[in-house]
């Protein structure tokens, strides 16, 4: 069969897309874990990561022509780091401004959502004003992203796919270890499990929440860099990617780190594998994604892996 023959290729594309979703979804899930809040502005953290890394990378390699091939890994690392730093600082500021003040006032949950929406509008439009509002980007082409690395059946593995999937896997393993094994991870889990008790145990809740935002922001910022190199970004890209990543987080069980990874990859795979099936069509991509989500939630109301951050890690 025509379609079946192409499945390996679509799986590869799905994994690439899914890695991206997963990296962003982790931020949603971490924040949800500790605050039981949907951080709507997380998508803009992702967006600012892309712009931040652009500025740094652009300063380092200019338009990217003539970058020696030995420097490429270095440039990627610089890009990831600068994206992560931007993302982390935006996320930290966000927590300070839009969340902590509301927490102090004991605001209702929806107020957090709306302040996050306000912050999201603000950040995305401010970025539009500062940089530009055009879709499509001029990210420097410092390496041949589309060079074929290897071929598995119909799947032609290209450089950028390797970079994305590899980085995502490394970062996810890193995060998993971080939450499972470090002191910070323990305090995050404790806050997620039972904040008042954690506070009684001497855990500084504010600081833990702040750091959770920073971790999630760093991941999203790095994802922003990857996204910018591989696809195109603009000040409004965050919204759509963020919505999907939120869906991915819910799919896996929001508040659950491994769930977010799984949900992201699953969503990416579904989006790549289902629409090309004959008689479906790419235009139904989002519908397919949301229908899968609803189906999963109907049968497993708390997502694939359930929702506790503390329990799953």
């Amino acid at each position: 069969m025509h379609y079946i023959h192409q499945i390996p290729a679509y799986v590869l594309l799905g994994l690439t897309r899914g890695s991206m979703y997963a990296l962003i979804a982790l931020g949603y899930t971490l924040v949800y874990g500790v605050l039981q809040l949907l951080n709507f502005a997380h998508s803009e953290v992702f967006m600012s990561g892309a712009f931040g890394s652009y500025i740094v990378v652009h300063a380092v390699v200019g338009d990217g022509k003539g970058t020696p091939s030995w420097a490429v890994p270095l440039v990627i690392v610089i890009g990831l780091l600068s994206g992560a730093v931007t993302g982390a600082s935006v996320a930290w500021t966000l927590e300070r401004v839009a969340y902590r003040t509301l927490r102090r006032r004991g605001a209702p949950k929806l107020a957090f959502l709306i302040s996050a929406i306000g912050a999201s509008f603000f950040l995305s439009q401010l970025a539009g004003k500062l940089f530009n509002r055009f879709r499509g980007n001029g990210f420097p082409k410092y390496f041949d992203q589309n060079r074929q690395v290897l071929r598995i059946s119909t799947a032609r593995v290209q450089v950028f796919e390797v970079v994305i999937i590899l980085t995502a896997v490394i970062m996810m393993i890193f995060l998993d270890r971080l939450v499972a094994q470090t002191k910070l991870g323990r305090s995050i889990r404790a806050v997620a499990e039972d904040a008042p008790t954690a506070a009684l145990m001497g855990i500084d809740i504010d600081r833990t929440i702040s750091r959770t935002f920073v971790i999630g922001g760093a991941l999203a910022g790095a994802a922003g860099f990857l996204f910018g190199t591989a696809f195109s970004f603009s000040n409004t890209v965050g919204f759509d990617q963020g919505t999907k990543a939120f869906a991915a987080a819910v799919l896996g069980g929001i508040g659950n780190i491994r769930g977010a990874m799984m949900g992201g990859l699953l969503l990416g795979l579904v989006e790549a594998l289902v629409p090309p099936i004959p008689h479906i069509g790419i235009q139904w991509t989002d519908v397919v994604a949301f229908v899968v989500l609803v189906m999963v939630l109907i049968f497993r109301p708390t997502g694939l892996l359930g929702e506790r951050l503390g329990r799953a890690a």
Partner: protein
Amino acid sequence: MYKRSLARLGVLGLVGVLALTACSSKKKTGSGLTGGSSGSAASGATIKIGFEGPLSGDNAQLGINEVNAVQLAVDQANANNTYGFKVALVKSDDVGDPAKAPTAATALQQDPAILGVIGPSFSGATKAVGASYDAAGLVLISPSATNPTLTTLGFKSFHRVVPPDSLEGKEAGDYLAKKAKKVFVVDDLSDYGKGAADAVEAELKAKGVASERQGVDAKTTDYSVIAHQVQASGDDALFYGGYDTQAAQFAKALKAAGFTGLTMTGNGGKSSKFTEGAADAGDNWLFSCGCLDATVAPQAKDFSAAYNAAFKTDPSTYSPEAYDATNAMLTAIKAAGASPTRAKVFAAVNALDFKGITTEIKFEPSGEVSAQVINLYQQKAGKIGLLGDINTQS
């Protein structure tokens, strides 16, 4: 009694005068309260024209492409005193959204000093406001509303400098039918892209050429799946209905997926944004466009440079058309005489014959531009060049 009839006379006189000057005297100059009864646009006076299009929101890019060109034309007219009067531009943001368009249109309609409007940019918005522009007697020249039905809905005020997407799509389909056995047609789910793609598909069907159809939302950033699907389909040609930025991304993804067939898009994709964005992936892409080669017209040579100098970016989709529409409008206002009114400008636009950088602007009674030649362009080595009338290409 005597007094009363005098009063009556007064009112009658008043009514008479008002009827005569109903439109002209509404105009006020921006410099002072010296309004006076002349209200004329003698040399040195300022004329207002409006622009309606998306300046914010998801579709803002197209509106910015256009409004920049309109602004450029206005600035040039003021700097060179081309038309003998000063021009002020009033921008009105309709977000490209039919629901917001009436408000934006009203803002222009209620200002009696505005004599003509460039826009609306989007067909949906145009449909929502056409009737109210008719009622206000305010003439429209749209640079980009290409929906074929617009000129059949009876909007007297509506004119456009681009051929409808149905014509463009039909000719493109014709051409593809000559070249390919099976065509993959993709649109961006926008009014324009879908309209063009529909026309291509219909024409292919009429010519007995097989085709398949997909849609990719214009907000998509990852074109790899659809590109792979195109590549895997084994079709020998692709038509993309959509705008330049998206077309560029699609071109890159197609190249990465290894698609080697014929690739073609319409007017919406033909711009330097495509060339820049797609770079070498855009080579050999074909463009069908109801426009002249922008390098031939004398004023056109400077347009791109002036645009870049003013806005630090290259002109993009529909920028040249908007530039032309503005100059056409200003020419019409000049033709409307020393004291132009909306009604006079309206008539002058209908009688216009203006050679712009994209095409010769002369309107049919329906509001369509007369010159409906579809030309074929192709990108080669990073530059878009004219191949000639699409019908003569083989």
